[in-house]
């Protein structure tokens, strides 16, 4: 998961200067606050994803970077240069638009060369750079075609090539894969990652698709209501979500409500109406009070179903009845109804093609999970 580049973590290095710095940026449209006192550092060569539901302010953040919107308060710096008042056409930043925004009256070649012509480069150099870009996105044969003659995937490549042609310090991608079908999207995700790695450029991607963000990003900023809720690597976001919003927005999750009863051997003891005995959770980071109301988040794939009695050493046991079974091919999803009325989802990999006597509807089962499979979310 994630673009695993082991040694790459400039954000962890306090001596590293960020390429982009948002400082206390607020953006208002009339009375509506789109971005709320937001601070954020993005580093050179980083593949950075802004993730969040629609209306969370991620697009506004990107448009402020591109220069289409000005912050109402706060400052944005790029390579230590304040961007205030710098119009879009003077910023060393290029953008790939969600709609691709290919000029319909220009062929592929002229679309890619548009930015270079604005810089007044010599013709030969423009031609050479356009050729290079066409090779990069493997569209050499379509140079003379017009956008209306291209498929969605081809348009996406032209838009990418056009944005890359000026070798910007920073490339912004607004929902870059949104218009592609699922198969093509997966392929393109990896191509984008390879490309970014090869060019050594900084990418900032806006997306509402968590899978896309998880696959490609070095770091993800999850946004909600104009604020950043968490900035972390995909692994951290998934395994150590800071809030319930993130746990629910990124991936599937079961939430068990409960109260803290105390700490034993460094593990938290939690009383929950969903379980019979106390639940044991290994989440040493949290500082909690006895009696505090909390939520426990457990991912469905980290829960195990047992027919009959659970293993005697199991720490967290829930009992319930199979309510629904969804067969997805690679996985099967079981929805288990607990006596409290709550429903938990448990997924199980389908390891063999045939199963004798499979788990059936209405069957009484036990569900267990390990203490370190759960995360405590303080309310």
């Amino acid at each position: 998961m994630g673009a695993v580049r082991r040694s790459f973590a400039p954000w962890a290095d306090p001596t590293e200067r960020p390429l982009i710095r948002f400082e206390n940026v607020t953006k208002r449209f009339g009375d509506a606050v789109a971005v709320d006192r937001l601070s954020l550092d993005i580093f050179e060569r980083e593949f950075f994803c802004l993730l969040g539901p629609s209306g969370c302010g991620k697009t506004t953040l990107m448009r402020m970077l591109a220069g289409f919107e000005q912050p109402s308060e706060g400052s944005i710096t790029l390579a230590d240069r304040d961007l205030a008042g710098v119009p879009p056409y003077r910023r060393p930043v290029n953008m790939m638009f969600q709609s691709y925004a290919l000029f319909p009256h220009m062929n592929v070649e002229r679309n890619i060369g548009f930015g270079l012509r604005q810089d007044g480069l010599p013709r030969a150099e423009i031609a050479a750079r356009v050729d290079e870009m066409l090779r990069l996105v493997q569209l050499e044969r379509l140079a003379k075609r017009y956008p209306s003659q291209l498929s969605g995937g081809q348009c996406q490549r032209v838009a990418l090539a056009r944005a890359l042609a000026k070798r910007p310090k920073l490339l912004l991608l607004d929902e870059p894969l949104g218009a592609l079908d699922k198969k093509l999207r997966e392929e393109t995700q990896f191509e984008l990652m390879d490309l970014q790695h090869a060019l050594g450029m900084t990418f900032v991607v806006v997306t509402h698709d968590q899978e896309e963000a998880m696959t490609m990003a070095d770091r993800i900023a999850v946004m909600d209501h104009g604020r950043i809720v968490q900035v972390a690597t995909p692994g951290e976001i998934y395994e150590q979500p800071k809030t319930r919003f993130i746990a629910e927005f990124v991936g599937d999750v079961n939430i068990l409500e409960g109260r803290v009863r105390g700490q034993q051997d460094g593990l938290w003891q939690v009383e929950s109406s969903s379980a019979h005995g106390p639940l044991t959770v290994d989440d040493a980071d949290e500082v909690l009070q006895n009696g505090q109301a909390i939520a426990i988040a457990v991912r469905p794939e980290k829960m195990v179903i047992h027919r009959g009695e659970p293993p005697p050493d199991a720490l967290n046991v829930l009992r319930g009845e199979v309510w629904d079974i969804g067969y997805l091919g690679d996985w099967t999803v079981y929805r288990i109804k607990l006596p409290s009325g709550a429903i938990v989802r448990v997924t199980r990999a389908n390891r063999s093609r045939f199963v004798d006597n499979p788990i059936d509807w209405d069957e009484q089962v036990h569900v267990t999970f390990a203490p370190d499979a759960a995360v405590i979310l303080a309310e």
Partner: protein
Amino acid sequence: MTRRLSLFNVTSLVLGFAFLYLPILLLVVYSFNASRLVTVWGGFSTQWYAAFFRNEALMDAAWVTFRIALLSASFATVLGTLAALALTRYGRFTGRTLFTGMVYAPMVMPEVITGLSLLLFFVAIDLDRGFLTVMLAHTTLTMCFVTVIVQARLMTLDRSLEEAAMDLGAPPLRTFFSVTLPLIAPSVVAGFLLAFTLSLDDLVIASFNTGPGATTLPIRIYSQVRLGLSPEINAASAILIGIVTLGVIVATLISKRSSLTPQRSEIH
């Protein structure tokens, strides 16, 4: 809606178009009438066309009308395009409500009012009536039509195209000329053609604002019509109709071809 047309639908269309086109058709047919009596068929003849071309007063008027239409349509196209840009790309500027009012009102305002008020204005500022005043009056009226046509196109134009151009380094003016204008060109041309025809057609506003040496074709035709039907006018009308029809056909072909250009060029 794409269900089959009912008998009622077909009848409405046939009767509707018959109503629209029959009078024009009859007018053209009777322009080839040999008889001086316009409504009595006296055999085929082209003599009235010859008479029209020999009629110097009519020919002069036609030439004046053409020059006024060309100039006023050109100015109207520039002003109307600017107005459309102002209405679609400038958000809520001060005086916007007044501005939209001034754009939409002339289109429905009875021509007698517009004509009279402009005339009184020209008299008040002591501008002699003639070619110039008719041209200014027509520019004012027709720029509103251009505005509406271009505005409609600008509204449907994807804003991100202009943003992309700016993002790639084109300042606003260059963005306009390299991206916006080529994309709205068909509507600008349509606006120009409409302005041109409206100017060509106008009787009322021209009558108020005309002066010596600036008698337009509609004014000439009108004064002749008031005296009774004249086969010469039929011929002149048929020629005008022919020119307009030809122009519309050519314009349609051009717009068809330009929309096909991308498809026609080499597909590997």
